[in-house]
C-alpha cells in the first residue's frame, strides 16, 4: 500500500521532522485560501498521486501570489496525471498539497529499504539528492552512503550520527539530520514499510526540512497497522485489482485480450510469457492461489467475464492442493450465473483430473480441454487472433 506525499509528511511531522508549512486541499478555492494564508512569497502546488515524476508530467507548479493560483489548482486537480510510472491511463489527482517555497542550500537523498541479500534494513543517503536513487547510483555511486542495521539491535545512535556527519560537517545540521534519519528508520520499522524515502531532504539556512517524502507499506505487515486503512486512496488503484484482492486473488491488469487464470504466481508469470512467446497478448495476471475454493475460482472467472477486452480465457492449473473438480465447478458456476459465451482453453493437471474433465464435458460450455501446455498456449493465441 502506497501513501501520498502529504500522508508521508504527516508521519514525519509526528516524529518531529520539520516539513514546509502547507496544507492539503481538495478544491481550487481551498487551494487559493491555503496559499494566501501561507504568507509566503512563493507557493508550490503539488498533485497528490501515487507516482513519481510528477514535476515533468505537469503535476507540480511554483507560483507567486500574483499568479492565478485558483486557476492552476483547478487545472491540476482536474487532470489524470500521466507520468513515466503510471502507464498511459495515468492517475487521477486525489488532492493538492499547497506549500510554502523555501530556499535550498543543499539537497540530500535519504531512503530506507530492506535489503534482500543481507536481510537487513538498510539506510541509504547521499549529500547530493534531488534525483532518483537509481540515477544517483549511476552518476555518483561514491557519494551514496549505506548503513546496514543489525536486525536485533536496531538502528543505533552512533550509526545515525555517523551517517549525518557524512552528509554535513556542520554540527547543528548534523544533529538535525541524526534526528531525521532516526525518525525515518522508526517509520520504516514501525509501519512495516517496503520503502521510506525523503528526497530531497533539504538544508535551508540553518534548518533541515523534508521537501518530498514517499512511504510504501508492505501488504504483509498491514495487519499490524489497521489504522493505515484510513489512508488508503482507492482512486489511485485499479478497481478490479482492488476487488480481486478482497477475494484473496492476486490480479494485475495488462494490455492484451487473453484472460488468464492460473494457480501459483510463478506459473502465472510463466503463462503470460508463454502466451507472448506465441505472439499473443494477455489481458491480465491472475493467480487464484495454491488452495483456491470453488467460490475463489468463480470469483476469478467473473473478473474475466466482466472484462470486455477479453476474447478468450486461458485456464492453466497445475493442481496440487487445488483439485480439478473444484476448479471445474467454480468455472461452471461463474458461467451459469452469467449466461455469457466466451471460449475457454483449459489445460489442467493434478488431483481428480478425470472428474474435472467430466464436469466440463457435461456442462455443455465452450471449454476446450488441451493436455499439452504448449499446444494450449498456441491455441489460445490463435483463438484470440481469430476472434
Amino acid at each position, binding site marked *: 500500500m502506497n501513501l501520498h506525499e502529504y500522508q508521508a509528511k504527516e508521519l514525519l511531522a509526528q516524529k518531529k521532522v520539520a516539513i514546509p508549512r502547507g496544507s492539503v486541499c481538495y478544491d481550487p478555492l481551498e487551494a487559493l485560501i491555503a496559499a494566501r494564508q501561507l504568507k509566503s512569497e512563493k507557493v508550490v502546488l503539488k498533485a497528490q498521486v501515487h507516482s513519481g515524476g510528477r514535476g515533468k508530467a505537469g503535476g507540480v507548479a511554483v507560483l507567486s501570489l500574483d499568479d492565478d493560483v485558483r486557476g492552476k489548482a483547478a487545472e491540476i486537480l482536474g487532470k489524470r496525471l500521466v507520468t513515466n510510472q503510471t502507464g498511459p491511463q495515468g492517475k487521477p489527482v486525489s488532492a493538492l498539497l499547497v506549500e510554502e517555497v523555501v530556499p535550498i542550500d543543499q539537497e540530500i537523498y535519504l531512503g530506507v529499504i530492506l535489503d534482500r*541479500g543481507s536481510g537487513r534494513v538498510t539506510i541509504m543517503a547521499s549529500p547530493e539528492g534531488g534525483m532518483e536513487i537509481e540515477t544517483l547510483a549511476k552518476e555518483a555511486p561514491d557519494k551514496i552512503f549505506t548503513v546496514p542495521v543489525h536486525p536485533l539491535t536496531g538502528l543505533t545512535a552512533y550509526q545515525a550520527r555517523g551517517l549525518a556527519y557524512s552528509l554535513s560537517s556542520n554540527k547543528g545540521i548534523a544533529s538535525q539530520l541524526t534526528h531525521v534519519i532516526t525518525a525515518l528508520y522508526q517509520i520504516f520499522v514501525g509501519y512495516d514499510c517496503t520503502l521510506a524515502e525523503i528526497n530531497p531532504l533539504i538544508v535551508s539556512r540553518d534548518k533541515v526540512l523534508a521537501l518530498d517524502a514517499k512511504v510504501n507499506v508492505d501488504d504483509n505487515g498491514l495487519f499490524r497497522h489497521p489504522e493505515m486503512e484510513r489512508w488508503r486512496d482507492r482512486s489511485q488503484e485499479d478497481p478490479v485489482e482492488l476487488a480481486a484482492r478482497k477475494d484473496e486473488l492476486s490480479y494485475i491488469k495488462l494490455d492484451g485480450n487473453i484472460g488468464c487464470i492460473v494457480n501459483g504466481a510463478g506459473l502465472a508469470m*510463466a503463462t503470460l510469457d508463454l502466451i507472448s512467446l506465441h505472439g499473443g497478448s494477455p489481458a491480465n495476471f491472475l493467480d487464484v492461489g495454491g488452495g483456491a475454493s470453488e467460490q475463489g475460482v468463480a470469483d476469478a472467472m467473473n473478473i474475466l467475464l466482466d472484462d470486455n477486452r477479453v476474447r478468450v480465457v486461458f485456464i492453466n492449473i497445475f493442481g496440487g492442493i487445488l483439485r480439478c473438480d473444484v476448479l471445474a465447478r467454480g468455472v461452471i458456476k461463474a458461467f451459469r450465473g452469467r449466461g455469457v459465451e466466451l471460449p475457454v482453453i483449459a489445460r489442467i493437471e493434478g488431483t481428480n483430473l478425470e472428474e474435472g474433465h467430466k464436469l466440463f464435458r457435461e456442462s455443455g460450455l465452450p471449454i476446450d480441454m488441451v493436455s499439452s501446455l504448449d499446444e494450449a498456449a498456441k491455441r489460445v493465441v490463435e483463438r484470440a487472433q481469430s476472434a
Partner: protein
Amino acid sequence: MAILIDRTSRVICQGITGKNGTFHSLACKEYGTNMVGGVTPGKEGATVDGIPVFNTVWKAVQETGADVSLIFIPAAHAKDPILEAVDAGIRLIVCITEGIPPLDTAQALHVVRQEGRLMVGPNTPGVISPPEKCKVGIMPGYIHKPGHVGVISRSGTLTYEVVDQLTRNGVGQSTCLGLGGDPVVGLSFIDCLKMFRDDPETELVVLIGEIGGSAEEQAAQFIKAEFNKPVAAYIAGRLAPPGKRMGHAGAIIDGGSGTAQGKIEALTDAGVTVIENLTQVGSVVREMLK
C-alpha cells in the same frame, strides 16, 4: 544421496494439529518421510495418525531426536516458532507460511544464520528428495522420480510444472526445492548450488528464477566462477510491468532493477542454458544429459 534431507532425516511439524499441518504431515509420511512428531502447545499427549504431539519443540527434539522442522504457523505468529526451532537445536527449518512480514523474517533469519542453522522459505513449497523418499513440503509427491537433476526455484506450481516435464521426459531428480517467493528468504540459489556441487549424485541443476531482486544475477556470478556442473534455467516474468507485485511478495521490478531480461543475460553470460519456452525445459534438459 541428496542435499538437505535424506532417509535419515527425523522430521517434526510445527502446527501439526492445524488443517494444513495435519494434511501435509500425513502426505509427507505417506511419501516416505520419517515424521517423528509434531508440536502444538497444549496438545501434548495427543497423536495425529500415530505421530506424537508435544507442547514445545524442545520436548519434541528431546523425545524424538528430530533435526528437521516443517512449519505451518499463521503469518502473524510465524517468527516465534522459527526461533523456537533454532533454540531447540533443529538443523533445517522448512517454513511453508506465506505472508510473514519481511521484518519478522529478517529477524528470525538473523538468528537462524547466527546459530549456523538452515532455513528454506518462508513462502516455499518445501524440499523433496525422490531417491531418499523424503519430502518436507507441500509439493505433490507423485510427479517426482528419483534421479540426478537438482531443481532450485523461487516458485511453487511452476516448479511442479518443470518437475513434471522432467519426469515425463524420463529425467529423475536428486533434490527439488523452492527457496520461497518472499523478498527475504533463507537459503539462496548460491547456497543450494554449493550443496549440489558437493553432491556426487547430482549431475545437472535446473534453476527456476523470476523477476525481483538480484538472486539470479548473483547465482550467475557464482556459476561462472565456481560451479562445474551444467545448469539449465528458466526465468518467469518477462511480461511483468514495473512496480507491480506479481503474486509473490518478492516478485517486483523496482526502479528498473530485477527484470527478467537482466537475469537472462547474466545467466547466459555465465554459460547457463536459458530456456525461453517453459514447455521445453524437460526436453532440453534430457538432451543436455545425453
